[in-house]
């Protein structure tokens, strides 16, 4: 998921832009020397140690490489610097993968930027445990600022009863996107249960249409099917307990989820060769555009990506929630996704956390929220209104969801997450049985828990 989150953006909007990355980041370099005196003050410093008039230089890293998001972030930060003239902010925008590597190196050598983000879950917890980021609870509590955000977003940013990040970018949940024309042609109804979904798939197969398009080299793509099946069968708690070690990855619900997936693979519900296809290069979407496939389970960024790549196709697109499991414990309205996507943190090494927090606030104030909606996003704040009906579907799904399950690969620690992704891929490839996969997950989880 991590990879795609960075791409939540419309490629169409990308088309309209040209220079973007060049616009930010340059130009700020020369100022660095002037602020070094301010930076030399005590490390535990807050505003008390920084004289109010002294210029403060902050640094910020983000990965919004597509327009208009690049300019939006820049505009937000420019407004902040204009209103607070003593601050200058060096904004670096980088590509997703580069970001992860660089941040890791920067954190270990204590040269991290003052403001950066994570997708919460395992990586954020790691930062907290390593004492790398500032506890934002006092800032979030001040004037009840946290009430501005959707509760699920705040929950996501909470670890050890404290809030560590500010949800800023987007609300993305996974749902089925389907070709309405194909459904109409074969007289198909939107399925409400997994059994109905299978009937739909069988009809499509009979007519030579691939039911699900999937590009699973990327691994988290297949994981979506697994997460939803486990959620519908065992309820949200099955996974939560397994991750918290109050439950087990050998729980019956995981086994059933794995069995259903393998059953679907054997029935050829997915396109051939999915384990070698790359989601990031659009290889799964091509199947939908060419009407060789009818459905895909994907994060809601699918809407903007597909709109950017193929406007005509969007006229045919509908969406529906993952169907309920007959007799399953899970609530049919529960969703899998993220409420906030990019959560901004303040590094422990930051000399002026108060100023840094203020800067973050400008990225999710009313102006910023309006701009993000305009760009086809659903900012994680309460009372958002969107005009696009498909986007409204996403918003509805989040608002009525009794629980939001964060993507497994972000929720789990990096090591367990990697195992989850590779075993799920093996599951899809039929090279491991559900039992083997669950055993491996459980063994690794036990091993990691023992280390703590």
């Amino acid at each position, binding site marked *: 998921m991590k990879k795609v989150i960075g791409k939540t953006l419309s*490629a169409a909007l990308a088309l309209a832009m040209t220079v973007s990355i060049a616009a930010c980041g340059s130009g700020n370099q020369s100022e660095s020397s002037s602020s070094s005196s301010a930076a030399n003050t005590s490390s535990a410093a807050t505003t008390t140690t920084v004289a109010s008039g002294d210029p403060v230089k902050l640094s910020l890293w983000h990965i919004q*490489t597509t327009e208009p998001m690049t300019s939006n972030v820049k505009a937000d930060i420019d407004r902040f610097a204009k209103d607070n003239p003593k601050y200058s902010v060096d904004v670096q925008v980088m590509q997703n993968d580069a970001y992860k590597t660089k941040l890791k190196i920067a954190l270990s050598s204590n040269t991290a930027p003052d403001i950066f983000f994570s997708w919460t879950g395992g990586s954020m917890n790691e930062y907290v445990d390593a004492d790398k980021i500032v506890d934002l609870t006092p800032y979030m509590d001040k004037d009840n600022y946290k009430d501005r955000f959707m509760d699920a977003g705040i929950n996501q940013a909470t670890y050890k009863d404290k809030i560590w990040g500010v949800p800023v970018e987007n609300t993305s949940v996974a749902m089925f996107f389907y070709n309405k024309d194909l459904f109409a042609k074969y007289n198909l109804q939107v399925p409400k249960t997994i059994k109905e979904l299978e009937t739909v798939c069988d009809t499509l197969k009979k007519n030579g249409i691939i039911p699900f398009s999937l590009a699973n080299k990327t691994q988290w793509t297949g994981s979506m099917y697994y997460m939803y099946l486990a959620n519908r069968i065992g309820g949200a708690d099955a996974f939560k307990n397994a991750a918290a070690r109050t439950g087990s990855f050998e729980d019956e619900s995981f086994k059933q989820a794995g069995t259903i997936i393998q059953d679907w693979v054997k029935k050829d519900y997915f396109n051939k060769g999915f384990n070698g296809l790359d989601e990031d290069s659009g290889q799964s979407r*091509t199947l939908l555009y060419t009407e060789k496939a009818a459905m895909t389970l994907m994060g809601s960024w699918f809407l903007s990506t597909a709109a950017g*790549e193929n406007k005509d196709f969007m006229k045919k697109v509908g969406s529906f929630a993952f169907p309920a499991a007959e007799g399953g414990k899970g609530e049919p309205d529960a969703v899998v996704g993220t409420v906030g996507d990019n959560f901004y943190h303040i590094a422990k090494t930051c000399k002026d956390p108060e100023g840094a927090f203020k800067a973050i606030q400008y990225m999710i104030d009313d102006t910023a929220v309006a701009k993000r909606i305009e760009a086809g996003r659903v900012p994680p704040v309460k009372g958002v209104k969107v005009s696009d009906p498909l986007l409204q579907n996403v918003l509805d799904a989040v608002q009525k969801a009794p629980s939001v399950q964060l993507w497994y690969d972000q929720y789990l620690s990096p090591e367990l997450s990697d195992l989850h992704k590779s075993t799920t891929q093996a599951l899809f490839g039929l090279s491991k049985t559900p039992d083997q996969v669950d055993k491996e997950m459980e063994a690794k989880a036990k091993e990691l828990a023992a280390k703590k």
Partner: protein
Amino acid sequence: MKKKFKVGKIIVALLALIWLAIAGAPFYFMVASAFKEQFEIFTTGVFAIPKGLYLQNFHKVIEGDFYKYLFNSIFVVGVSLVLILFTSLFASYPFSRFKFKLNKPLFGIIVAAMAVPIHVTLIPVFQLTQKLNLYDTIFALIGPYTAFNLPISVFILTGFMAQIPKELEESAEIDGCGKYRTFFNIIAPLSKPGLATLAIYNSVNMWNEFSFALVLTQSQKSRTLPLSIWEYQGQYNANIPMIMAVLTLCALPMILAFAIGQDKLIKGMMAGAVKG
């Protein structure tokens, strides 16, 4: 006998044609796609001839920071290449010519260094770069680029120099030339074809290097072309033609350099300076 000769020729010609297709097809795909509109690639098929010469992709790429990346790449590759050529020329001389105790062990170190995967050294080199205050400058890349291309260069050049007949320098030595004069007057000029091979091989390698550039530089001002491919790839998502335009533009300087350099390479060889 004659028949056999013909069969051999046919097989070779067939191989030539097959290889022409294999080597050329993906390249054709890259260039042809670069001239396509974004969606053309899905509708007409990946390998179809473009409908027309759609130049928008190239326009957009060049409007950006392309020239800055280009300059950075040329600078880093140029400086590193000069260092590599001189250093490996120096080093290959004693390895191929002198008899001294440590010859084999030292050459062993060079061979071993050739096998070192750069990822082993990534973090220590990053920390070193920071200590030297070179982090996030293009100068940071010169050291690692030179160091990591030296072993293979020395290896190739030593093999090459070993083929230069010893009689030449022996007669020079009898004429009273010292080691240094022998080196500069006889060995170095005779090694030109070998150096040409090194120049081409190393430029291509460094031009396309990715990992060090990713870790040792950070801001726009110090980015090189391959890194920009990664940036563009993030920026244009699944806009394949756009990415292909970037790839084409990045490969173009190397192709030009090879087109020009190839001739020199062949001339150097044909000059008969080296006769095994």
